[in-house]
C-alpha cells in the first residue's frame, strides 16, 4: 500500500524513522553522527566552501531545518548559508536544530580532515555517505585532480529526483496485523559519563587479515566483528547482569527495496547472547550469532519492521495528538522501549567507494556514531582502500570495551593501528 502525502514546495514531512529523533533529543544530545575523510594534503577552506555550494542544490532533502508544528515536527528548506567552519569543538557536538538559517548538517575541516556532521533527522548513514563521496570528489576536482563521477555517485549537474526525496517507508508500507514490539531488555554497559564530552577511538585494520579470520569461522566480516563486540561486552559484563547482551545491527533497506532515497531508510535488528543461561567461549558466541544478521536482513522481516513503524506513525490517535504531548510520549517510548533493548550498536557502512584518482588523494575514511550519553559506546565500520576503520564513539573516558575489542583482534593475529580523538588521553 502506498501512502502519498503532498506537501508544498520546500516543506517535507519527517520520514517515519526520523519521527523519533526530534522527540528523543535533549539539551546535550540530538543524534549527530560524523563521516570524515582524511586527505593526504591540508584542506583548502575556500575550495571546500565552493564544493559545498556545488553540492547544496543537489540535495534538497538535506538542506532543511526543523520546525515545530501543531501536530508534528516538519522540515523546511533553507537558503544556502555557509556551513563550513574549522573544527574547534569535540566531535559530533550538539546541533541547534531550531536554527532558522542553518541546515541540519555541517562541514568541518581540521588540517587534513574534512568532516561532515549530520543530524539523523534528515538522513541516515547510507544517504549521507553518498553526499560525502560527492563532496570529496568535487573538492578534489576543484583542487585540480582530474576525475569523473562514477554512476553510483550523485551527479552534481543533475537535478534531484522525486525518488530521492521520498519517504520510502510509506512507499513500501504493507498493512499487517498482530505485529508486536515485545522484546526483553538488554544488559547495559555501565561507564562513568563525562559531561559534554565525546571521544572517538579509531582502529585501522587490514581487510585481508580480517577476512582470513572471519573465513576461519565461516562468517562474514560484519558477523565476525559483531561476535568480537559481543564477546567484549560478555567479558566486561560477566556476572553483573542476568539480562541478555544485545547489540543492535542497523540494516540499510535501500538494496532490499530498490530505493534511492536520500532520507532515512534503514532498520535494525538486535542480536543477543544469554549469559545467564550458559558460559560462553568466543566460539560459542560465533555459533549463537551465526546467520542472525542474514535473518534480520531478510525482506519479510524488514517488511514487518516497516509495517510496524508506519502503522504506529499513521495511527489516528498519534496523528491528531498535539505535538507537545506526542513529544513526551515518544520520548518515554524511546527511553523504555528503544534504548533499553540494546547495549550498543555496530553499524557497517560498507565500502566507501571513490573514483581511482580520488583514492590516491585520500588516506582514510572515518565514520562515527553519536550514541546517547547514557549508552556510553557505539561502533561504526567503514572500508576504504583495503583497510577497515573501526570507530568507537563514547561519552566516557573509560576504554574497557575498546581495549577488549582491539586486543582480541591483535591476539588473533590481525594488525591494528589505534588512534584517539581526545588529545589528553594519549598525551
Amino acid at each position, binding site marked *: 500500500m502506498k501512502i*502519498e*502525502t*503532498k*506537501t*508544498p514546495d520546500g*516543506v517535507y*514531512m519527517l520520514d517515519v524513522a526520523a519521527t523519533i529523533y526530534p522527540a528523543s533529543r535533549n*539539551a*546535550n544530545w540530538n543524534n549527530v553522527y560524523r563521516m*570524515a575523510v*582524511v586527505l593526504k594534503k591540508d584542506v583548502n577552506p575556500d575550495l571546500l566552501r565552493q564544493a559545498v555550494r556545488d553540492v547544496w542544490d543537489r540535495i534538497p532533502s538535506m538542506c532543511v531545518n526543523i*520546525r*515545530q*508544528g*501543531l*501536530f*508534528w515536527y*516538519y522540515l*523546511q528548506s533553507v537558503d544556502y548559508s555557509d556551513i563550513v567552519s574549522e*573544527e574547534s*569543538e*569535540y566531535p559530533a557536538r550538539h546541533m541547534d536544530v*531550531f536554527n*532558522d538559517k542553518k541546515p541540519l548538517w555541517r562541514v568541518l575541516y*581540521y*588540517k*587534513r*580532515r574534512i568532516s561532515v556532521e549530520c543530524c539523523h533527522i534528515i538522513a541516515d548513514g547510507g544517504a549521507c555517505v553518498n553526499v560525502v563521496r560527492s563532496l570529496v570528489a568535487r573538492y578534489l576536482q576543484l583542487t585540480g585532480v582530474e576525475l569523473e563521477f562514477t554512476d553510483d555517485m550523485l551527479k552534481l549537474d543533475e537535478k534531484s529526483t522525486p525518488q530521492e526525496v521520498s519517504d520510502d517507508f510509506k512507499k513500501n508500507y504493507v498493512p499487517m496485523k498482530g505485529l508486536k514490539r515485545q522484546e526483553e531488555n538488554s544488559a547495559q554497559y555501565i561507564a562513568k559519563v563525562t*559531561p*559534554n*564530552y565525546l571521544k572517538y*577511538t*579509531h582502529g*585501522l585494520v587490514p581487510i585481508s587479515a580480517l577476512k582470513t579470520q572471519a573465513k576461519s569461522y565461516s562468517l562474514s566480516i560484519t558477523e565476525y566483528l559483531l561476535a568480537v563486540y559481543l564477546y567484549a561486552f560478555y567479558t566486561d559484563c560477566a556476572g553483573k547482569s542476568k539480562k541478555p547482551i544485545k547489540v543492535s545491527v542497523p540494516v540499510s533497506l535501500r538494496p532490499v527495496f530498490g530505493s534511492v532515497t536520500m532520507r532515512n531508510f534503514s532498520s535494525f535488528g538486535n542480536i543477543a547472547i544469554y549469559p545467564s543461561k550458559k558460559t560462553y567461549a568466543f566460539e560459542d558466541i560465533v555459533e549463537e550469532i551465526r546467520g542472525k544478521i542474514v535473518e534480520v536482513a531478510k525482506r519479510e522481516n524488514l517488511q514487518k519492521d516497516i509495517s510496524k513503524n508506519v502503522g504506529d506513525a499513521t495511527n489516528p490517535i498519534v*496523528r491528531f495528538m498535539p*505535538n*507537545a*504531548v506526542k*513529544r513526551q510520549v515518544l520520548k518515554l517510548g524511546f527511553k523504555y522501549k528503544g534504548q533499553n533493548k540494546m547495549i550498543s550498536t555496530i553499524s557497517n557502512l560498507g565500502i566507501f567507494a571513490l573514483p581511482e584518482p580520488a583514492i590516491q588523494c585520500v*588516506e*582514510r575514511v*572515518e565514520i562515527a556514531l553519536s550514541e546517547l550519553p547514557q549508552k556510553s559506546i557505539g561502533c561504526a565500520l567503514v572500508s576504504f582502500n583495503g583497510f577497515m576503520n573501526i570507530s568507537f564513539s563514547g561519552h566516557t573516558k573509560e*576504554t574497557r570495551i*575498546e*581495549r577488549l575489542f*582491539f*586486543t582480541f583482534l*591483535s*591476539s588473533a593475529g590481525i*594488525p*591494528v*593501528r*589505534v*588512534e584517539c*580523538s*581526545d*588529545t589528553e*588521553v*594519549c*598525551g
Partner: protein
Amino acid sequence: MRCEKCNVDLAENVTRCPLCGAQASQCSPEISGFTVSEYPKVQYKKYPFRWGGAALIIFVVASAFAFIYDLKVNKSYNTALTCQCIMLILWGVLLRPALIRHRSFASYVTIAGVSVLPLLVHHLSKPELLNVAVPYILAAVSAIIGIAMITRRQKNRAVVGATHVLAFLVLSVALTIYNLFSFGALSVPCVVALCIPIAVFVVLTVRAPRELVNELRARFLA
C-alpha cells in the same frame, strides 16, 4: 609507536596508549602508510545547571503543600486537585516546550511564578476566586504570547506561539466546562478567557505565517 601491552600500533606523536594508558614504545609499526589524523585540543565544559528542574521542584512542593492543606483545612481535595491539574498542563504541555530554545534563569523563575500563582490565589482567598483568577491569567498569558508572536519576525516562532495559544484555548474550554458543572453557570472571566485566545488565534491565522499554512495543508488537506 606501539603499545607492547595491548599489542597495537599507535600514532607517531603519542606518549601513551589510548586503550590502556601504558607508555608507548618506539617500535616499528605493523601497519605502515598512515600518519596521525589530528584533532583540535578542546576545553570540555560541564553541562549547564538545569533551572527547569529547580522550577519543577518548586511546583511539586507547592502542589503537595496545597493538596495537604486543602485536605486538612477544607476537608476536600477538589479545588487543589483542579489547580494542580491546570498547573501540570501549564507546565508540561505549554511552558516547558516553550523553553526549548530560551533557557534563562529569569524565564524559569517566571514560569515557576506563573505555576504557583493560582495556588496562592486559591489559598489566600475564597475558592471561588480561583475561578476568576485562573481564566484571567490564562487569557492574559495567551494574549501576551499572541502579541509577541505577531510582532516577532521569525516565522517559526509564530507557529510555536499558535500552538500555545491553541493549547490555552483548550485549557479555557476545560475550565469553562468545570465552571459550568461546579456552579451551573458561566462566569464572565471564563467567557473572556474563552474569547481572547480565539481572537489571538484568528489574528495569527489571518496574518498567516506561511509555515503554519503549509503544515496544515501538508497534514490535513493532502
